[in-house]
């Protein structure tokens, strides 16, 4: 149960491997940076794809399927390529709801 809140802001990216959501395989990742601008940036962030948050890639493809805070989200590859992520160890860390 994630009662303790996670760090609000991603700590300065150490050694940016700059993988994007479009390039990874199924599993959990932590978003590092959203490089989209304007309306696309808002559309991504307000659904919970924002720095510091954990998301799970459920189905690859274009559009792909994500699990963000317990909700399924369909995301086109084009938008996914604006989201830099880092893999997290383990499968489902502390059940991020």
């Amino acid at each position, binding site marked *: *149960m*994630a*009662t*303790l*809140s*996670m*760090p*609000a*802001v*991603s700590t300065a990216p150490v050694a940016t491997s700059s993988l994007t959501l479009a390039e990874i395989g199924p599993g959990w990742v932590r978003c590092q940076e*959203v490089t989209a601008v304007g*309306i*696309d940036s*808002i*559309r*991504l*962030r*307000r*659904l*919970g*794809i*924002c*720095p*510091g*948050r954990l998301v799970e890639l459920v*189905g690859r*493809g*274009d*559009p792909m*399927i994500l699990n*963000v*805070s*317990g*909700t*399924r*989200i*369909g*995301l*086109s590859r*084009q*938008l996914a390529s604006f989201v830099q992520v880092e893999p997290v160890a383990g499968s489902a860390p502390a059940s*991020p*709801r």
Partner: protein
Amino acid sequence: MNQPSAFAERTAASPPPPSTVLLVGNPNVGKTSLFNALAGLRAKTANYPGITVDLREAVLPVAAVDDDSRCQATSDICLIDLPGLYSLDPASPEEEIAARRISGQLGGIADCVVVVVDATNMARTLVLASEILELNLPTVVAVNLIDAAESRGIQVQTDRLSERLGCPVVAVSARTGRGLAELRESIYQVVKPTKPVLPIARASCVAGCTGCPYAARFDWADGVAGASTQQGESHGVQLEWLDRWLTSRWVGLVALLAVMFSVFFLIFSLADIPMSVIETCFGWAGDRIGDLLPHQPLNRLLWFPIAAASSLAVAAGAFKLNETRWTPVSGTLVVLVSVLIGLMPLEDFRSLVIEGVIGGIAGVVVFLPQICILFFFITLLEDSGYMARGAFVMERIMRRVGLPGKAFVPMLSAHACAIPGIMAARTIETWRDRLVTILVLPLLTCSARLPVYVMVAALLFGDSPAKAALMFAGAYLLGLIAALSTAFVLKKTVVRGEASPMILELPRYRLPSLRNAWFTMLDRAFVFLRQAGSTILLISVVLWALATYPKLPESQDYSSDLTRAQASLEYSYAGRAGRLVEPVFAPLGFDWKIDVGIISSFAAREVLVSTLSIVYGLGEEGADDARGLVETLRDQTAADGSPVFSTATCFSLLVFFVLAMQCLPTQVVTKRETGSWKWAILQFVYMTMLAYVAALVVYQTLAAAGYDQIT
């Protein structure tokens, strides 16, 4: 303050305007269901000047649940159902309206905001709540879908949640009605007249955030949700496998086609009976009214006020229905027309009422059953969570031509009628995508085209049902291909750019509610009638006048009523216009009589059949008897002895009607939804040109192959 003084205050002056209460929340958390549960049939569509979004509102009483029910105090509220939104930073026109309404830029600051959150997904739906709470408006949080949460073993501790949020929290279920009384009470406590509406100063929910505010909100919501809910055991979502199939590339597509096919099958099979009932009713009403009208010319002085007043009344009714404002210009026009109508000879008045007004309205209302059924099933599919999967699957295909995946719902609707299709385009977020969708929708085969297709099929393949079916399929396909290619061309020219890439919530599957679908259907049906009904009334009166005036000179004798009707149509403005444009349409193989049909069906394409029936001397009733009409049409020959309705002409006519605009009500709706006549005109011009060129190519090709001599 206590209640007696509140009572005195309220009785002293005129009753205060009801407090406004907004229902706010993420898409699909059950705002509309909650609205329906609270308001029932009191809902009406609110009208804010300058916005096209229909907000539904209802005035209803809310009461304190007192120990002693005799002194229960009540207060009227005006409850408003807002479009769903994810955050106060809007990403679509509807969200912008919702955000502006919440912040008070539209219609003033609300007296109370009810934030609806989803008990089965607290963490994510609370994010918006944090934004609303920071506005320091009087807020109540309604935790909806509590029934679904409990059956999944999720426990929500509303008192703890209330503590964390600093506002009242009520667990409700719009489905079962649980908690509605408490919700009313909480709203009452917030809006009750005595209470000074002071914003409750709240410690900012998301304090000290330096980075991405969204991330901070999500983290905050995670914390609050974690502290106030307990996850049960039976959490497994059993529909995982279904989702995998429905979103997969090929199976998903096949499933979508099957769903679409079933919806159409249901529309066409279920709508048949109500449609013929409506036709009969209007026929009957026409006869009754015809009987009621006096047969002998009455005293002018007596007749004039009656006729003019009834015309004024009809106009006023149409204005009210369409929510048109009376301006000096429109007022004068209506009065002038009413005076003219009062001065009309009785014969003309009768024909205006029966053919113009009743016939015109009947022409729209017959499509109502189809539209109701369509919306009923679409709402069921939307509520179940399937529509988002449909959009997801279509995204792959539609994106290539510059349409968003979400455009498939409007495209589905447009196969019944373009008007609900255009209205359904509101679910598309970005303006560019919505515009392209609206522009190409009328190319899809709507049911008003079917009478024309039926006539052509009978002319060409009267003896072969299989070939006729093939022709129908071809016509549908032609419309679809034309729509997709036009979208592609628009993407390269007028409305440049790509469809905005998809990010779409795929909601959990839920059992849809019939009650909800029923209310939505009634609402949409009313909007359709309002949109199409009043426009059609105007158009039918104008068309009636064009086909009636000028009258034949009295001197001539005609052997029968039919030849008389034929001659008078020829003599009218519509007939003259047909002759005038003959050279334009001659290369498509149309003679002037067909041109009269095309002109008179300019506003509504299904009129073609009845007009052809009149020009070829069968009378209005001839159109009902397809065999009679088709035989007559087949026998028509041009001056050189070749048949008028040759194979080449028939195909050319078919292609023309697949592609041409020929529907004024649709254009009015396009104007309304896009906010300018520019797009409606563009739609008309490109479709007419496309239709003309395609029909020209078809006719000339077939004629070169010798098909213009045979039928």
